[in-house]
């Protein structure tokens, strides 16, 4: 028998070890992927949608991604302190892409751009650009890589509802007007004509690519909640929260459900838009026709989540609705809502009856 040369034993043993380790790793990986899928931790199958560079980065850098991400965080932090904001959008994009499955990074970076950086700008157009950068980062990148995470949809909805829709930013009026103008240009009116959209592939593509708007889901929302004005940021908050809810596994859609009822509440009070860009007129008025949808969204949230604050929010909503309907001279409906309020949420405020409550006055 020919003796085995000693120098061959080592490589052969090493190769056998490597094959064994690979086999073991493959078995563990298969089980992990199955478990991830079962627990809906993330979608390992959606890797096909990622750009090659991202896949390369994620696979090739392996654990070193963390170190690079740390260096970029340090640089971003230093640049922000030094007031050199130009590079921050780029760095935010890279930092998030180095850890694309970490949703907190996406939401933090988007929030930082839309809130912290935008307020530093001297000109409103620059502020708006940074708000858009935050929205774009979440909508075009974050959600793309974490399509099953409802939190990111809720974060995006929050940017629409709070950053653009609420009055916390001094320039909210400018943001709202710019958004309404863009939507007018995109949809042709305050509400899209879904029939004509199917015959306009260019517009359809723009809606999907630039704004992430899916006409089928928009139509579903309109059917479910009523005819919403798509120029309003709150409507987009509802849209993104609704999309998040569609992706969430049962019991994990709390952020989206909250977003839906709070955005619908806002739409009930400010859901009709009178917008004339030429005259710089942007006014909203109540849309009481959305009350049933808002009530239904509260009821849905109450059925699915046992959180105290949903009940509190619902009680406050009903109280405000009674005043709104009374102010709008819709007394029978106001009484009906009052009864609902008193029955569901008895309090010193409503125990004296409808007349006493409306006589007391106060804001709606």
């Amino acid at each position, binding site marked *: 028998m020919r003796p085995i040369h000693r120098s061959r034993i080592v490589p052969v043993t090493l190769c056998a070890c490597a094959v064994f380790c690979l086999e073991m790793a493959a078995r563990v990986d298969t089980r992990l992927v199955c478990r991830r899928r079962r627990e809906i931790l993330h979608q390992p199958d959606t890797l096909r949608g990622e750009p090659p*560079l991202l896949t390369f980065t994620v696979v090739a850098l392996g654990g070193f991604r963390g170190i690079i991400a740390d260096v970029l965080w*340090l640089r971003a932090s230093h640049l*922000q302190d030094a*007031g*050199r*904001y*130009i*590079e*921050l*959008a*780029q760095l935010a*994009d890279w930092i998030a892409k180095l850890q694309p499955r970490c949703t907190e990074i996406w939401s933090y970076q988007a929030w930082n751009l839309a809130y912290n950086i935008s*307020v*530093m*700008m*001297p*000109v409103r157009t*620059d502020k708006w*650009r*940074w708000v*858009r*950068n935050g929205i*774009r980062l979440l909508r075009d990148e974050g959600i793309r890589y974490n399509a099953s995470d409802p939190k990111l949809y809720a974060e995006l909805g929050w940017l629409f509802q709070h950053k653009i829709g609420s009055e916390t930013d*001094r320039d909210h009026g400018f943001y709202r007007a710019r958004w309404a103008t863009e939507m007018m240009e995109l949809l042709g009116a305050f509400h899209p004509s879904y029939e004509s959209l199917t015959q306009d592939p260019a517009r359809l593509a723009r809606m999907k690519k630039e704004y992430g708007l899916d006409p089928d889901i928009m139509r579903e929302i309109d059917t479910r909640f009523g005819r919403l004005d798509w120029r309003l940021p709150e409507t987009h908050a509802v849209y993104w929260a609704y999309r998040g809810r569609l992706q969430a596994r049962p019991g994990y859609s709390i952020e989206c459900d909250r977003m839906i009822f709070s955005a619908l509440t806002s739409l009930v009070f400010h859901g009709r838009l009178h917008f004339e860009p030429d005259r710089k007129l942007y006014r909203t008025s109540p849309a009481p026709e959305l009350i049933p949808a808002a009530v239904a969204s509260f009821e849905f949230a109450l059925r699915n989540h046992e959180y105290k604050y949903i009940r509190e929010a619902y009680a406050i909503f009903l109280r405000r609705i009674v005043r709104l309907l009374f102010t709008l001279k819709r007394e029978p409906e106001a009484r009906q809502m009052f009864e609902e309020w008193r029955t569901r949420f008895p309090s010193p405020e409503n125990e004296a009856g409808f007349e006493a409550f409306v006589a007391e006055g106060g804001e709606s």
Partner: protein
Amino acid sequence: MPCGPASGTVRRLCATAHLTFRSAVRSKVLISLISLLFLTVVALPLMLKGDGTLYGRAIVLLKYTLGGSAGILAVMTVWMSCQAVSRDVAERQIQLVVVKPVHPLELWTGKWLGILAMNAVLLLLTGAAVYAHIRWTLARPEVTAEERARLAREILTARHRIAPRSEGMLEQARQYVEQLRAAGRLPGNVRVEDAVAEAHHRLRVRRNAVAPGEERTWIFDSPGDPGSRSAVFLRFRCTASAFSTAAIKGTWLVGPPGQAPLFEAPLKTALGGRSLVRLPRTAVQPDRPLHVTFRNAGKDRSTTVLFDPAREPELLYGNTGFTGNLLRALLVLLGFQGLLGALGLSTGSLFSGPVATFTAGGLVLVFLLVHTFSPGNILEEGTANGHDHGETPPFVEAIHRVSARTLGRMAAPVMRFRAIEPLSDGLHIPWLTVGRAWLLLGVVYPGILGALSACLLRQRELGNPGLL
């Protein structure tokens, strides 16, 4: 043709450099790194987004493409230079050289020149690619005239900078600390230079805080006649105690003191960001110093305007052209590569290839870390901003402090040369800076390292079989 010792040295240097260059070109690792460099230069600009504006994209393009390329070249240089001597020793080729009348210093310098030549070629190609990309971007039809003008005005330019005149704050800080010391109020564990630095910093912060109703004036030397086609800009950075730009009411006034201002402009800035104010030609008198005053017209105490004490307002003027500035920036970067090459060659003269690469790479990393987390940021215990580190023994603290300070001092002369930041800021890089950079990075440090390496090479028994 006469052939003296000098021409012989030049011939030997050229021959060694040529051989080093050729061996580098044939190296597979180097080809991989050059491919990476090519990707950085060609593919990276296509993936950059910036902040959504052409201006932002151009800044990011300049910084990251040039910075990334310089980083790859640095890795390449360290690797190549570490291998240059150590491989010759390992492969016994050095024995063929040492028996010839080639001085070790000539060998070292020849190899260094070869590495430098390789870097020069690659840096030139990188610079050309970046320049071509910017020109291509500018020529695209979707770029508006306004964007093009802003780019030309703020980035694709090379403006001179004038800092405000010194107000003797350092001297005042020294006097203050001296008074404290004389009165016995300076704690024994606080070093005088640290106390002076702290007092100086606080004084600068106070002087640069402009409360409502207050004024702050900076005096600049006149930029002379900036020329009919050149504008003068005031660049500043400020923030405010109020968290909104709209709350701040302030005015810039330019003109001699006690007279009606020649120019007035409202404060308009991104809070914390750097802003430019264009000064009209009438406001700049060629023969007189320029008085620039900021007046805070706010009434609410919460709208104090705080100018950055580390970056006081400055005047920018003139335009010496972007192309020349890019070339000068590349030359400074080449100087850095020269230093890295010298470091790699020196460690390669001492150790085997892997050990030399590890040592040189480690040294570079340590210096970079020390520079990034500079000793200035490492607070002393017992000072106003210091804090107790708990369980760390005092001697460990002391070692940390001393080593960080020493390394910081060693790194400081090298790190003060900047190429990419001024280039992307549209600031002129003077030939004087290039010369100083080359003197230090290309002559002094490599000279010292080369002389040490030559001594070591002479001492080392290169024909010893134990080395093989």
